[in-house]
């Protein structure tokens, strides 16, 4: 079955600590992978997409096809990174945007 898994629901770290938000998917073919973020009382918005291979707000995400993972990483977390993060793999050829269950990141001062 096609599925996306974010195994951890909560992650709490101190400012300056590294963070890794995990995402695994089980879609066949070549899905396009995204990370979305929702800051407190704000709309969901795109954080980054794997085809861009860019770093946004210090976050990067590497697609590992062998492990079918797309983990989101940041070497030094900041308080303003506190938010809900959703992994969203989109199956190839599909317009269906499916999201993982989300993970709440809290960065403490």
């Amino acid at each position, binding site marked *: 079955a096609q599925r996306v898994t974010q195994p951890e629901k909560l992650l709490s770290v101190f400012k300056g600590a590294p963070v890794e938000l995990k995402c695994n998917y089980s879609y066949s073919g070549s899905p*396009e992978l*995204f990370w*979305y973020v*929702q800051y407190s009382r*704000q*709309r*969901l*918005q*795109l954080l980054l*997409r794997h085809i861009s291979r860019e770093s946004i707000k210090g976050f990067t995400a590497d697609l590992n096809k062998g492990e079918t993972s797309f983990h989101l990483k940041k070497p030094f977390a900041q308080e303003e990174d506190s938010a*809900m993060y*959703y992994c*969203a793999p*989109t199956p190839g050829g599909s*317009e*269906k*945007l*499916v*999201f993982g*269950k*989300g993970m*709440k990141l809290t960065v403490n001062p």
Partner: protein
Amino acid sequence: DTAVSQTPKYLVTQMGNDKSIKCEQNLGHDTMYWYKQDSKKFLKIMFSYNNKELIINETVPNRFSPKSPDKAHLNLHINSLELGDSAVYFCASSQGREAFFGQGTRLTVV
């Protein structure tokens, strides 16, 4: 300019009532969605329309009926509201794979 706008932002209503949430996008996108975010922040797709045609209809009670008068609008009508319908409803649009979301409508059924 707001790309995807939803109204109302907050909606408090009694059980059994019928209510609508409106969504408009000015991005010229062909595809629009409705998502439900529950109390655990789990985001679940409900409907998807492509150029006014329904293409995705997940397992959603018949009390929920989307309507797309044109490709810039996708409204959500809910009949006979139940307590379990309380959630935040997000509208989104996309052209290709990237989605743009509205600010959400927090529906509270009392």
